[in-house]
């Protein structure tokens, strides 16, 4: 009976979503990827052409539309490293260095295909505007343009599952039109309060032929977090709020 209800509801929902504007679809995609304010645990896996892997575990908190902080929990060589993003500003704190240093969004603190902007991603609608949208029936294709020059990728082509309103893939382009990388969203599963979100993002890049990076969301939930957590002075203390 429940399965029948779900199938009926989804049939009704699909055309409803299709009637939405591109901006509303992008907003729905953002919320279906993550709550606006949350804490999460993620694992990054860099896979080399010979199959060997390098893994990183991250604790991340996000608040509102422009505040993200991440703490490396593993491996030991990276433990305690903290990254902070406030809008277009990014900093890296390395325990041995003892003070935050400004970094740029295009750099990568972990190596591999993911860069800082991927790890400390803000809502897409915060950084991009929708230039055009194609309705292909089962999917929408949104073409997004960066709102400012501080954004890591100049343009995105986002293919969205029209039923679940979550991305299937995102192609990331430089201002020159060069394809930098493609993100593939997989393994949609239930997280906090049953919200279905993609648990796995796989990345490949023509710039790193044969290499793949995977970001696995282990846990994600809404959480109230003080604004002061998202400051330079708090970066060395982020472990204390786990």
């Amino acid at each position: 009976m429940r399965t029948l209800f779900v199938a009926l509801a989804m049939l009704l929902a699909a055309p409803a979503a299709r009637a939405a504007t591109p901006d509303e679809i992008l907003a729905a995609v953002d919320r279906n990827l993550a709550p606006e304010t949350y804490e999460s645990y993620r694992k990054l896996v860099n896979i080399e052409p010979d199959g060997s892997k390098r893994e990183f575990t991250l604790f991340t908190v996000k608040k509102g539309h422009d505040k993200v902080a991440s703490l490396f929990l593993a491996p030991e060589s990276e433990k305690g490293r903290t990254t902070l993003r406030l809008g277009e500003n990014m900093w890296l704190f390395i325990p041995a260095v003892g003070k935050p240093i400004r970094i740029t969004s295009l750099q990568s603190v972990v190596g591999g295909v993911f860069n800082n902007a991927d790890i400390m991603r803000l809502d897409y609608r915060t950084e991009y505007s929708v230039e055009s949208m194609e309705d292909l029936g089962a999917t929408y294709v949104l073409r997004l343009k960066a709102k400012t020059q501080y954004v890591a990728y100049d343009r995105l082509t986002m293919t969205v599952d029209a039923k679940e309103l979550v991305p299937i893939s995102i192609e990331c382009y430089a201002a020159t039109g060069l394809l930098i990388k493609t993100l593939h969203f997989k393994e949609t599963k239930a997280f906090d309060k049953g919200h279905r979100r993609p648990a796995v993002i796989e990345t490949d890049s023509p710039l790193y032929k044969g290499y793949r990076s995977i970001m696995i969301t282990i846990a994600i939930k809404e959480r109230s977090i003080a604004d002061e957590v998202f400051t330079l002075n708090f970066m060395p203390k982020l472990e204390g709020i786990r």
Partner: protein
Amino acid sequence: MTRIRGMIACAALVAQLAAVPTPAPAQDEYDFSELEREIRTKPYAFGGFFELTPSLAALDRESAAYRLRALDPGGDGYSRRYDAALRLEGSYRAGIAALHARAEGQARREDGEWERRAILMEGYLSLRPSPGLSIEAGKKAVKWGTGYAWNPIGFIQRPKDVEDPEEALSGYTVLAADWIRSFDGPLSTLAFTPVILPVADHVNEDFGGGRHVNAAAKLYALLWNTDIDLAVFVGESGSAGYGVDFARNLRSNVAVHGELAYVTEAGIPAFDGAGALTMETSDVVAALAGVRWLTESEITVIAEYYHNGGGIRADDLERYFALVDCAYDAFVESGDCALLDVARRVSGSALGRPHPGRHYLYARASWKEPFDILYVTPAAVSIVNLADGSASFMPEISYSPVTNLDLRVQGVIKAGGDNTDFGEKLNEWRLELRGRFFF
């Protein structure tokens, strides 16, 4: 429009309902239960690294640094050094309190001699009653300034090793607090950090003798996306310091930073009218301007200009090296080392810093994972004394073959003529291999 929003909400609700009975597909590829075990929180943390660093250096027998040491000229002209270090770091949390410690044991074998030492780099208690307030007491490294290689406003920190500026430094014994507030609008963050730095026997003796108390404070603001710090250091140690710094991203691949410090009663090494090297006391300005730039080919360039108003003038540095030459000649001819002792004392105090001059340029270019080779970073570093044109070049390659193991090969080559800053350094070149295993 309201109806459309309602439809989207309905779609999201349906998606949630659908989640309940439907098992997630193909989850056996990722073992989530194992991942969830990994992220469990513990009240304690422990880690560190073990490091081995053998190095070989070719000595410049004509250099002032060599002559000051009056080294045995009968050697083969090479210095072989083997360094080992064990660093331990730990913390324990209980409620709003936490204990932190970082200690290191070091052993060095050089020219047949062993040297060992153990130091507590940091050891302090912190209390954090709220995210916006924390208090710390104990030995702690307080690092201020936005510069990478130098920090003119780092009034209460030990000097960085410019050849390795990201290495941890030992702290001083302090009582410090952090008060943080966040706002909406152009002023996003305001943070105030007052620090009390007592001086007594065996406590913070770098700040002078006797028993007294110094105070320092830093006010940080994130204003219009720009980091701005105002710093002050006052007390009975003699010099007072007042400084300001900033840092800002210009584009997604470019960031700029700078520091400006005004230090009162700073000691400046200088030759007096009688030809003796003395310490003049004067108020000085130190400044730094830098840029961090990531190129399209993933090369990170860090460049900094450093003006050290408290440094020795280029002509006085030249006269000092001439003094060392005279002293060494006297020692060789007569065995009299009195003049050499004077030169050594000056070197140890006034010129003891690795970069005693006034104008320096630091440039570092590192290429992350070139040619798609992951975990390999070649880099080239250069430090130039702009007053006399001498320089130090440091090519290096870092490689992490497996998780938690970092390997680095670094060379140091000096360039500069007689009586120049780098030209008179001890080593013609040095080659160092460092292996660091984290646990």
